[in-house]
């Protein structure tokens, strides 16, 4: 097999392994649109990275976290609902990113690669960044797991029980920013959220515990990456969107499986 395909597979699966468990939380906490908004701001992070000459991945993380903080501040006013705020922030930050990219002189940015991913061009350096970022994200998620689950189920109850809600929520935002930066190369800014929520949603039917759902989400994500890459090579389709299509197909198949017997078998606690 060609080298670039191996790199694409390794990079894609590493991203899927992190996006699955994190995506489960995105789904449980109803934050899909929030994830989208953070992802859309990533392009501005890319432009800033080129502008000040910092590592692009770093500026993406910084910008996503900044946006999350801005959103928190804006939520303190009650006049505009959260989905309106998210709509404003998502599209204005994406547009601002596109405008900023146009202003960059002397730098040719492959806009399509950032918007829709360029997994077949994943380099050794990209792989190292993906692995380090992925391991860091999984480690953080493992450390935050129980308190994060507790505030997801009931925030007030968790707070009375001593969970430091603000700290945990901020950790979660940081995690999302990290995963967006890591996954950007694979599926692109516009499609990152799908790699988080589609495998997680598909895994729900197969799971009786939160941990199992996270695990299945990671596995389904890996399958989607493999299937999407295969489809992309076979029919010469764009790789990022092909991965998302593969994930959607897996979701459709799992949801149309004849349910009862399968569910009973999988749901019986071990």
């Amino acid at each position, binding site marked *: 097999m060609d080298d670039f395909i191996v790199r694409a597979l390794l990079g894609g699966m590493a991203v899927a392994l992190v996006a699955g468990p994190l995506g489960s939380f995105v*789904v*449980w906490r*109803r*934050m899909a649109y*929030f994830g989208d908004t953070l992802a859309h701001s990533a392009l501005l992070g890319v432009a800033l990275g080129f502008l000040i000459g910092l590592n692009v991945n770093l500026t993406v993380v910084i910008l996503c976290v900044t946006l999350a903080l801005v*959103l*928190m*501040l804006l*939520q*303190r006013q*009650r006049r505009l609902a*959260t989905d309106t705020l998210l709509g404003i922030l998502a599209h204005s930050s994406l547009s601002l990113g596109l405008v900023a990219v146009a202003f960059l002189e002397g730098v040719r940015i492959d806009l399509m690669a950032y918007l829709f991913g360029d997994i077949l061009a994943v380099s050794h350096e990209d792989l190292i960044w993906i692995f380090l970022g992925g391991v860091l994200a999984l480690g953080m998620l493992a450390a935050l797991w*129980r308190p994060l*689950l*507790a505030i*997801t*189920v*009931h*925030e*007030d*109850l*968790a*707070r*009375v*029980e*001593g969970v430091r*809600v*603000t700290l945990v*929520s901020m950790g979660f935002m940081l995690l999302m920013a990290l995963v967006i930066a890591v996954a950007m190369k694979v599926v692109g800014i516009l499609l990152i959220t799908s790699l988080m929520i589609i495998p997680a*949603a598909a895994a*729900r039917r197969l*799971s*009786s*515990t*939160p941990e*199992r*759902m996270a695990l299945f989400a990671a596995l389904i994500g890996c399958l989607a990456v493999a299937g999407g890459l295969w489809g992309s090579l076979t029919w010469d389709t764009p790789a990022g969107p092909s991965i998302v299509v593969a994930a959607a197909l897996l979701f459709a198949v799992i949801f149309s499986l004849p349910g009862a017997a399968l569910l009973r078998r999988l749901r019986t*606690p071990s």
Partner: protein
Amino acid sequence: MFPLSRLIRSRDDAVPARGALVAARQVGLVAGGRRILDGVDMAVEAGRIVTLIGPNGAGKTTLLKVLLGLLSPTGGQVLRRPGLRIGYMPQRIQVDEILPITVRRFLGLGGRFPRDRLARVLAEVGCAHLLEQPVQSVSGGEMQRILLARALLREPHLLVLDEPAQGVDVAGQGEVFQLIARLRDRYGCGVLMVSHELHLVMAAADSVICLNQHVCCTGKPDVVSRDPAYLKLFGKTMPAGMALYTHHHDHRHDLHGDVVAFEGEGPPGRGCPGSEAHRHHG
């Protein structure tokens, strides 16, 4: 997603009076231009059951949240005994179908506990058979017991229960209140609970606080379950263990809701200072 105000922790440097687990001192809360709590003074002591009653919108749940530290009062002070461990049972809890979670895992979210404690608590509240069920599949009454179990697993000094008998039929309500009284006896913890009904309060409550933005009155509930008038009114539909709380207001409200002191009842300053739009039901 959370409001930034929670980044700033309220300082609880004062300590409540001897014996009190938690106390409110002239606590007021204004939210969105509306006064929800006004000059509330109250305390819960170890081993005592205090019940908050009052009409809809009286601020009962808000007062609980202020005492729990979930909301910051805009006036006054909340005093908590240092190191106080609270077991909290929120009003209702709805776990989304998308989150697969069994009762066992739900109980484990409150912390790690020794295995024998889990078995004991489950036996006490009577929900051991639900342990492996998905949380979404249990009934409202079962969920109340599960929430109570999660609060008890912490071996709390203070139990705070927001409408513990909600979603439970009338016969079951009596059981819930008896269970709470038994738990108080066993653990020696203080209990603070909200009851939605104005006039129906459990006989075991040591004191009742009637709240309507401010504290209208406090006192012991009278046991009238054997009173002929009570039986005539309610027949046998009321389970044993429940009693009418006889209201001894030191003031009444006129048609506009203004406070009018009863004649010959001493100075009128004791209740309802400056209450606007304040009415008693029943």
